[in-house]
């Protein structure tokens, strides 16, 4: 499994709801070991793209391969082996509200590896919870008792429960204060480096894009119009991209990132 190989391959994807076409002839590659940011205006189908890749949304046509295997039109049974290898953080955290944080983390482990004993599950949940930066006592709290930022971290702990190779994050920093958002970015980056993750990151947060993304894919006009580093995208003459990165907010984020020597690999 060489770094740089394609881990997600989307070809000719078409999604529509009724008459409304969301995606048409959409192509996208995600390479192993990178953090790919996915941006696009509201309603361009960023979440729909993620849902198609993880098999929650049946596309009208097109092929999607994850780890070299198709996720379209597959039996639930066949998808299990793939599902063990990815983790997903949904927008609102999607924590199970009747379970404590520790129990939430244990759900995927119990589901896929029923032989593991409770003592070991408790130990695993405890270090996963602290690894995502939550205080240890948060493990026994219920989701309703957590703040927004803590819910995201708890959701991340659950997404990482099976030590996945691939991590999907749907707007992880939305609704967090700037300090919390920056801390979450840092956490994502540090976990990505530690665990060798590939991250598919849907975001609106320009700071996140500058700080942690290796490449950025831009969704517009029902397809991915460009993929590349931010400087590469800036060199393109597409009005939406220019507006997005060179708008007032984009410029501030760029200054911030370069001021403190952000990732910005070029």
């Amino acid at each position: 499994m060489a770094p740089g190989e394609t881990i997600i391959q989307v070809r000719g994807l078409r999604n529509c709801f009724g008459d409304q076409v969301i995606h048409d002839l959409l192509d996208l590659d995600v390479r192993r070991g990178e953090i790919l940011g996915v941006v696009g205006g509201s309603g361009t189908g960023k979440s729909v793209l993620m849902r198609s890749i993880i098999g929650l949304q049946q596309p009208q046509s097109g092929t999607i391969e994850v780890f070299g295997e198709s996720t379209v039109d597959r039996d639930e049974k066949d998808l299990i082996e793939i599902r063990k290898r990815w983790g997903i953080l949904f927008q609102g955290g999607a924590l199970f509200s009747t379970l404590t944080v520790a129990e939430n983390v244990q759900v995927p482990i119990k589901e896929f590896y029923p032989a593991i004993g409770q003592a070991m599950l408790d130990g695993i949940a405890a270090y996963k919870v602290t690894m995502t930066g939550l205080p240890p006592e948060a493990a026994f709290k219920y989701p309703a008792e957590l703040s927004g930022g803590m819910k995201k971290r708890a959701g991340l702990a659950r997404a990482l429960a099976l030590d996945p190779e691939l991590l999907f994050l749907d707007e992880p920093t939305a609704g967090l204060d700037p300090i919390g958002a920056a801390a979450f970015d840092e956490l994502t980056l540090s976990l990505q480096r530690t665990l060798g993750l590939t991250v598919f990151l849907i975001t609106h947060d320009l700071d996140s894009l500058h700080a942690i993304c290796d490449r950025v894919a831009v969704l517009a006009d029902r397809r991915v119009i460009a993929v590349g580093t931010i400087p590469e995208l800036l060199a393109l003459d597409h009005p939406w991209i220019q507006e997005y990165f060179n708008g007032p907010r984009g410029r501030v984020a760029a200054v911030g990132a370069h001021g403190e020597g952000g990732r910005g690999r070029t």
Partner: protein
Amino acid sequence: MSAFADFARDDSGGGTLRFTGDLSLARLGDLPDRLEALSGDVARIDLSAVDRMDTVGAWLVHRLALRHGAEVEGLGADSRHLFDQVASAADRPAAPRPAPQGAFVRLLGEVGDATITAGRTMYGLLGFMGATMVAFWNVARHPSRFRFHATAHRFEVVGVSALGIIGLMSFLIGIVIAQQGAVQLRQFGVEIYTVELVGRLSLRELGILMTAIMVAGRSGSAFAAQIGTMKLTEEVDAMRTMGVSTMEALVVPRTIAVVVMLPLLGFYSALIAIIGGGVLCWVQLDIPPVAFVERLRTELPMVDIWVGVLKAPVFGAIIAIAGCFQGMQVEGDAEQVGHRTTTAVVQAIFLVIVLDAFFAVFFSEIGWI
């Protein structure tokens, strides 16, 4: 796939454990149990022959090293980083799991909690009734604030849409009363009293009681769920900040709808139950409809209708207020909505039956028998 995780033991130099294979969650097999059962000294843990290690593997090795005071060797740069991260997370003092209490203490605690909750709920419900009264008074003083469309819509949802199911239920209940009554009365040779049985029971008690239960299940629960969801999505808060009184906008139309509709539905239910009973009398007891109606006219006192119809608005108010009150109590998460909806129905039915008992005593005391 790669090999399962395994280890070999080398007792020279204080004991060395050499791990091989894939130290990951999917390839652990019975390794944790074997490590747990391990005895004797371990001075070094050699990971140089490990193919792949994930956080679970790192955590297991870290725990083992801590227990035996062993040193971990043979890590590459990447795995060293992973190992250190996991070790630092695992070394933070773990929070103690909240201590489980003894069964007796827990029982006492639960009884106490339930008592306090019941007391608070009754107190809150009384307060809510008061607030509803105030809202009605305000609407009466400023009729322009009355929400006509919302109320008319509730009339339809609570009343008209319920006609089908309440009619069917009442028809069947009428048949059951008549059939069971006829069987018993036949032993004394007075089957003809089945007519009075069906008529009086339907009008005084069963028509209104069964309708109240049905409306509590249909509309009381819907009120709790609607208002509860509106609380969760902060619609209720948004209304308040715009100066809209939630009591006037949400509670008053619903309460009016149930208070007005329940007597009508109850009377309708009693009529259908009598028709059901009449059909059975005709088929099984050979009492033709004309004779049935004639006997009802001569034998049924008018007060029976009043007994039924007078109770209904009170039941309606209880159902609506319990539903709205529980909806307003929703806080936190979606599970609360379900919980509060259930509570609203249980509370409404319970209170309706308690009040019905009071009414029964009251009406016999004033001679409406």
